[in-house]
């Protein structure tokens, strides 16, 4: 953590307290632009956007914060609070990606490494001593390893490229270009998965399965890690 980042963070917080949200956003975005993926910075950024009535941006940053800190109750609350203010109601289809993943990929790796060390240590012991307890410990941790490995695998394979509408009303087209048929209209704050990017257009898919092309300038998108 460099001093610069700390200074910007403190000054941004001060700007937020003075209700100078544009300055706060600028500061937080500067921290994020330096490659610092910090969940608390994203939370603050989301709050500053909410206070500035930028619902789409707020949801986007809350989701990024949640991706990095999935069990943070404040982030979850603020995201829920922001989602309640969106206009579009989407009835989601049950899908593979709905499986709740309560840890980040880094946390999964740490857990798997710890379980792995325990399992193989017990196994080493069994190589020399025919004790019962290492066998029990090994078996318990094998089960734990599998339980963690499954959602981790799901998190690896599922589409984590998401986007949020940042304009008040956005047309979704059947193909690239505004001359095509407008399939439906989305409003600020609506979330979706991104299936493909082509030039200035992105192919999106809503939770209810609807697909279409949206101009890239009307959205914010990111890949959750």
């Amino acid at each position: 953590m460099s001093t610069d980042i700390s200074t910007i963070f403190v000054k941004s917080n001060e700007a937020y307290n003075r209700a100078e949200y544009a300055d706060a956003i600028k500061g937080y975005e500067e921290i994020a632009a330096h490659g610092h993926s910090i969940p608390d910075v994203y939370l603050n950024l989301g709050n500053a956007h909410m206070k500035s009535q930028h619902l789409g941006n707020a949801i986007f940053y809350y989701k990024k914060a949640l991706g990095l800190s999935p069990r943070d109750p404040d982030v979850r609350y603020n995201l829920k609070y922001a989602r309640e203010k969106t206009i579009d109601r989407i009835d989601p289809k049950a899908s593979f990606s709905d499986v709740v993943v309560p840890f980040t990929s880094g946390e999964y790796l740490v857990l798997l490494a710890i379980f792995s060390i325990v399992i193989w240590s017990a196994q080493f012991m069994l190589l020399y001593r025919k004790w019962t307890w290492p066998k029990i410990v090994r078996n318990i941790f094998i089960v734990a390893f599998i339980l963690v490995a499954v959602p981790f695998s799901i998190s690896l394979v599922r589409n984590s490229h998401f986007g949020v509408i940042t304009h008040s009303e956005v047309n979704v087209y059947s193909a690239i270009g505004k001359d095509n048929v407008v399939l439906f209209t989305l409003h600020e704050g609506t979330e979706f998965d991104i299936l493909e990017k082509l030039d200035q257009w992105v192919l999106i898919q809503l939770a209810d399965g609807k697909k279409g092309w949206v101009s890239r300038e009307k959205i914010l998108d990111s890949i959750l890690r």
Partner: protein
Amino acid sequence: MKFLFLLSFLFVQAVWGGDISVQIEVDNNNVTTQDQIELQVHVHGTQSASEPQIMGSDNFLVEQAGTSSQIQMINGTTTITKTFQFIFSPKREGEFTVGPAIVDVDGTEYKSESIIIKVSKDTDQTTSRAAENKNLFVEAVVDKLTPFVNEQFIYTFRFFTQVGIANANLDLPEFKGFWKEPLGEQKKYIKNINGVQWQVLELSFLLTALRPGKVTIEEARLIGEITVEGTGRRNGRSLIDQFFGGRYAERKRVQLITRPLNIDVRDLPGDRPDGFSGLVGNFTIEAQSDKDTLKMGESVTMTVRLSGYGALENATLASQETDEFKFYDDKPVSNKNLDSEGVISTKIFKRAIVPKKAGNLTFPPVKLIVFNPTTKVYQTIQSGSFTLNVLPGDKDDINHTAYHPTSAKKSIEVLGQDLMPIRYGLDSLSNTPLSRTQRLGLMLIILGLPLIYGALHVVTARQLLFKGNISLVRKTKAAKEFLAGHKTLMNSSTFVEDALNLLKDYLGNKLNLDGRSITQFDIERILVPYQVSASTLTLTKEIFDMIEKSQYGGLTLTGEDKNKICKKIRTLFDKYEKEMKS
């Protein structure tokens, strides 16, 4: 005079077992909001009709007034009629269509026609006293039409009558926007108005305005039956009554409605001062203690009496904890009394005070900031302070009993929602996800441990395998020792001896024998079981022969000969390694 309007008659002739018809009629279809209508539904031709469902009755309060059946036999024709009676009280003025009445007879629906009822405003209700020419009326009054928010005022409903009323039912307004509290029991008294004695029934409520703005207290409605003397003939009057010519009395249903009251609730003026208690009224506060001398560890009970004209439900005492005192609050007690100027509310708080040190200590006054609606200013009311003489206590005298406040807990009312706050701590910045290197390290641990285990497993297995198995150990090390010896053989000063021993040791290790005792005559016997080829056997014999001759026959070997022997030995080794299966 009672009107009888025949407004709907679907089929007049009803015969036993004949056609069924439904008829609806009212005693008056042009009424005021004060009047009541007697509505009857006649079902002709059956006695098994269900309770009628009367459409369009939403604009009336509907009460059932009973059912009756009638069977008539005229000239051999039997007529059956079942009549359902209802009392309709208009809720509002207007022209309303009532009906059809629908009855169900053995699964079949029968309908009457509809009737129109015109309800006009009762001119007598424009002022409550305008009805004094009648023998009964009602009124609703408040003592303040423009109260402040949180200010209390009194709503009074009065019923004036000169006649008796039976089956009375009072329908009070909902008092939306106000906190309502009954004020004592209902009162009955006699009042003289313009020389006329009226019996008065009075009900009062204490109202507290909850928010500023114009609010209407809806009308109150009293419905009942009064006894009036009849003036005309009445069906069913007995011949004896007619003979004596007496006037008959009948019961008449009446509906009395007060006027709605428009209340303009004013917001509190100006900025509310810090520490404003929220109380609106004219209050006083006084405090007293039950003793003025006590020992350390003892407590003194302070009684704070807050009273005045205004609502005290939300009154609480501010904290008075200092370096000198601790205190514990008991549950406060409230009561209300009505006097000539209004309602006096009183709330008594009991606060147990425990001194923290000895000496003459002054307990600070209890202060409250309230709004006085009479003077329209915020004012601070306070009790007097009092001095306590706290003596040092014996250790054993110290009262260790903890005081537990007994006041009832209130659930927290959520007034609004907002975002969870931003994060301020700089430690937030260190909460970063794992770097690529860290992830790689973890992946190496996860994937590398099985490999390490595999290698260790192999080593351990070999150790276990060789443990106590000399034959296997010698067999495994035979090649290694041969190759090591073969490397230095050319430079050996005792070449012949070393070459022979090298070969013999190799065979001895490989076959788990005493190699040094092998001669060229043992070669075939030893090696044939190991499926060694004939050419290898021959070559072995040749080498043995050559070396033994030079060793025992005194043959001197040149460097070229040594080199040749070395190569042959190596060739032989390769053949053995290749051919000897076990």
